[in-house]
């Protein structure tokens, strides 16, 4: 046989998720984010959980920019949960950049001033005569320079300046550039980075059988499973049955021998129940409006034309490629948690509460996440690990299989919307009524969205049905479907008024600007800006051989307009291209930003086309990727992305590109075929029968 001798003594400790590196000798800390070693290694801690939104690269870029550091000397380290040092270590609502922009800039800018001050003392010159560039402090007059490492120890003794001036956009050297993902080198080598990659000596692997929604355990016979080789224990807890063992495969096999019977514990619901309930809720009387302008009832009575449309969305799985998992080691002196968490502070609190231990005794190490999409904002799976570790008095890693993830997990709430528009005899839009309903959807509306401010008689409200089916935020919560429904409806209004949808939208944005009714909470100029940009870049209306659909949406502080382009090939509509114009303020990392928008659009299209979880008596029909279809390479259109050149503080980009994508597609589909799409997944709509949008010539 080729190769060397036998490697026999493998230890799990050799395969740990990357631990925090030891501090370099003499490393000097400047603030929570930044330390510099005498040998000139600039270490920047990135405090927020990384799910693929690229925050681990973008955050340190901002510190390095204001520091004037040489990016080549920057070492980025994922911080653990540390509420003393950091604020909002969270991945939620595309809010990280808005929250931390000034904090990160300040961390870099104050350290830069301290380094300059140290150099001024060393050279006995005024700091006003000094400049910085690429990791050096310069005294240009005398030609002297020192790198940051050489000044770090002295600089740390300088008083931290209270006032700093941030760079102007024109002076940026890193921000706005395509800086590559700091984890690329490890990812392409297959290094352990994820929660599922955590292995420890003595660790038990756990898989858990969970009850169908709305049921509890009636009886559990675990004898056969427990007798299987490699099984350490089988534990019944909280209507769940956990099988624990030394190897994943042995646990998998033993689990199949569990005999668990369930009985109802609350409502046991099916998708047919939800469909019926949602339709009923659309007609519910005496609902408190979320926003009301003018007199909607009166205007709808006198309108020349009323358009009413309804749109429905199914439950969706988050389908993170890395299924839920967590490592916990509950010891007498403290609790060690390692794994994927979008809200690590919540996770720690929930675990501390569950175990009845002090918060300070719980540490949490954040791993890179194989996707999150909102699912990992919940602590259910980390609490399972903590509870089992506490019961078994051993380190435990809980692993959900794909089937667990899809069947017993958390879903994007199912939703249904009814939109109504009143037009006068000239086609003017004079009344608007919208209701959102859903299963655990909370307020599924955004009452201050366009056409708020532009249409004088306006009413938005929402109702939800409380269900035992567990739901959680799913990339761009509510908006992921509202964006489609709303932007499809607006296209119908423009069509009914015999107007071009872009021209029609701009005219109502004008109206909201000049004669606003009620509060206008979106920036009309920025909205117009992206619409005009997408019209220009897509060549809107110029190519008569293609069918274009338009949408424009504001969410998470960012403005995005999209145009989808369909081409007819032998009578089949083929989605060729998506064009997006984006205003998210300053673009921090151009490479990451392009991919967030492209990926968001692909995700939005894929789920609108295929995504669906249906239930029969609390049990999901879809169990894995054979029945829960995700979009694949052959089905994607080209995507062009254009950013508005802006100096406004950066806003969210992980979510905003998704909501408008399906509407642009549906509106183009209407132009191409004369048929509207109202319900997702589109693949089940009558209008899509025999259509293959991804078919190439």
């Amino acid at each position, binding site marked *: 046989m080729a190769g060397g001798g036998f490697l026999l003594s493998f230890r799990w400790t050799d395969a740990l998720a990357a631990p925090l590196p030891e501090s370099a000798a003499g490393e000097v800390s400047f603030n929570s984010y930044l330390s510099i070693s005498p040998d000139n290694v600039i270490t920047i801690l990135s405090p927020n959980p990384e*799910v693929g939104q*690229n925050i681990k690269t973008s955050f340190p870029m901002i510190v390095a920019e204001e520091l004037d550091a040489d990016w080549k000397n920057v070492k980025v380290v994922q911080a653990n949960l540390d509420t003393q040092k950091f604020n909002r270590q969270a991945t939620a609502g595309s809010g990280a950049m808005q929250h931390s922009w000034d904090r990160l800039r300040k961390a870099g800018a104050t350290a830069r001033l301290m380094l300059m001050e140290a150099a001024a003392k060393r050279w006995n010159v005024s700091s006003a005569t000094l400049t910085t560039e690429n990791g050096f402090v310069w005294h240009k007059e005398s030609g002297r320079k020192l790198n940051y490492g050489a000044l770090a120890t002295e600089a740390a003794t300088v008083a931290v300046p209270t006032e700093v001036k941030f760079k102007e956009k024109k002076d940026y050297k890193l921000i706005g550039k395509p800086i*590559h993902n700091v984890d690329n080198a490890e990812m*392409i080598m297959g290094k352990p980075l994820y929660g599922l990659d955590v292995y420890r000596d003595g660790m038990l692997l756990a898989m858990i059988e969970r009850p169908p929604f709305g049921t509890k355990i009636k009886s559990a016979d675990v004898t056969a499973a427990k007798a299987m080789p490699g099984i350490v224990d089988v534990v019944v807890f909280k209507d769940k049955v956990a099988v624990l063992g030394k190897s994943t*495969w042995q646990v998998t096999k033993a689990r199949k021998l569990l005999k668990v019977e369930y009985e109802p514990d609350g409502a046991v619901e099916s998708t047919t129940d939800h469909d019926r309930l949602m339709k009923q809720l659309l007609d519910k009387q005496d609902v408190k409006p979320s926003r009301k302008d003018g007199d909607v009832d009166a205007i709808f009575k006198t309108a020349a034309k009323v358009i009413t449309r309804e749109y429905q969305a199914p439950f969706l799985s988050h389908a993170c*490629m890395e299924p839920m998992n967590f490592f916990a080691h509950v010891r007498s002196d403290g609790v060690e948690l390692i794994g994927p968490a979008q809200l690590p502070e919540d996770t720690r609190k929930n675990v501390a509460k569950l175990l009845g231990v002090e918060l300070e005794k719980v540490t949490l190490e954040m791993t890179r996440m194989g996707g999150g999409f909102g699912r990992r904002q919940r602590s259910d799976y980390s609490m399972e690990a903590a509870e089992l570790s506490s019961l078994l008095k051993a380190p435990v890693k809980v692993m959900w299989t794909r089937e667990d993830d899809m069947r017993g997990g958390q879903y994007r709430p199912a939703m249904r919307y009814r939109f109504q528009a009143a037009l006068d005899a000239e086609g003017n839009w004079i009344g608007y009524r919208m209701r959102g309903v859903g299963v655990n959807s909370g307020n599924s509306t955004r009452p201050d969205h366009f056409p708020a401010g532009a249409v004088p008689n306006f009413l938005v409200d929402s109702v939800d049905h409380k269900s035992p089916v567990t739901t959680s935020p799913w990339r761009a919560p509510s908006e992921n479907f509202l964006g489609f429904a709303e932007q499809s409806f607006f296209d119908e209004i423009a069509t009914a008024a015999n107007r071009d949808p872009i021209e029609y939208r701009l005219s109502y944005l004008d109206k909201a600007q000049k004669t606003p009714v009620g509060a206008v909470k979106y920036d009309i100029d920025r909205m117009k800006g992206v619409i005009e940009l997408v019209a220009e870049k897509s060549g809107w209306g110029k190519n008569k051989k293609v069918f274009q659909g338009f949408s424009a949406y504001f969410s998470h502080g960012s403005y995005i307009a999209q145009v989808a382009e369909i081409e007819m090939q032998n009578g089949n509509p083929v989605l060729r291209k998506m064009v997006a114009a984006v205003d998210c303020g300053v673009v921090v990392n151009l490479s990451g930003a392009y991919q967030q928008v492209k990926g968001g*659009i692909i995700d939005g299209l894929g789920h609108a086309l295929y995504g669906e979880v249906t239930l029969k008596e609390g049990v999901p029909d879809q169990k894995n990727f054979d029945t829960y279809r995700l*979009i694949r*390479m*052959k089905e994607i259109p080209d995507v062009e992305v254009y950013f508005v050149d802006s100096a406004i503080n950066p806003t969210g980009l992980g979510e905003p590109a998704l909501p408008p994508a399906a509407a642009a597609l549906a509106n183009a589909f209407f132009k191409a075929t004369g048929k509207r799409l109202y319900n997702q997944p589109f693949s089940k709509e009558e209008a899509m029968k025999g259509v293959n949008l991804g078919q190439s010539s």
Partner: protein
Amino acid sequence: MANYTLQINNKNYRVDVEEDTPLLWVLRDNLGLVGTKYGCGIAQCGACTVHLNGIAVRSCVLPVSAIGTKKITTIEGLSANGEHPVQKAWSELDVPQCGYCQAGQMMTAAAFLSKNPKPSFEQIEEAMNGNICRCGTYHRIREAVALAATKRK
């Protein structure tokens, strides 16, 4: 339980596991080669792709008893220092988002390019269509496979 000698990344490993254990779990649980990922367990997503005598296979459904003396390559063994054309292209085009599926994507691409060194756009799509990326990095993956083809000697 049975003993198996596996040749992985040009090294020999001896493991004592049940004969129906999928290679994926031998790699991850027994050998600490965790670069190969679990995504679905039913050969639908491609996250667990490894090479068996140079052919891309789904390790989540490949029982260890079926391997025999065939040579296994995992992402850890694709190159010593990340210098395989596919790895270089992935890095150069900044492909990964969350990164979880990318080892499988790269292993599929590497096996494909060794059989088809100068692929067309359509052939790349056909070859890569079995690998799911939930983040939607497909454009960059497609471009990286094409770039890797130009880097092969």
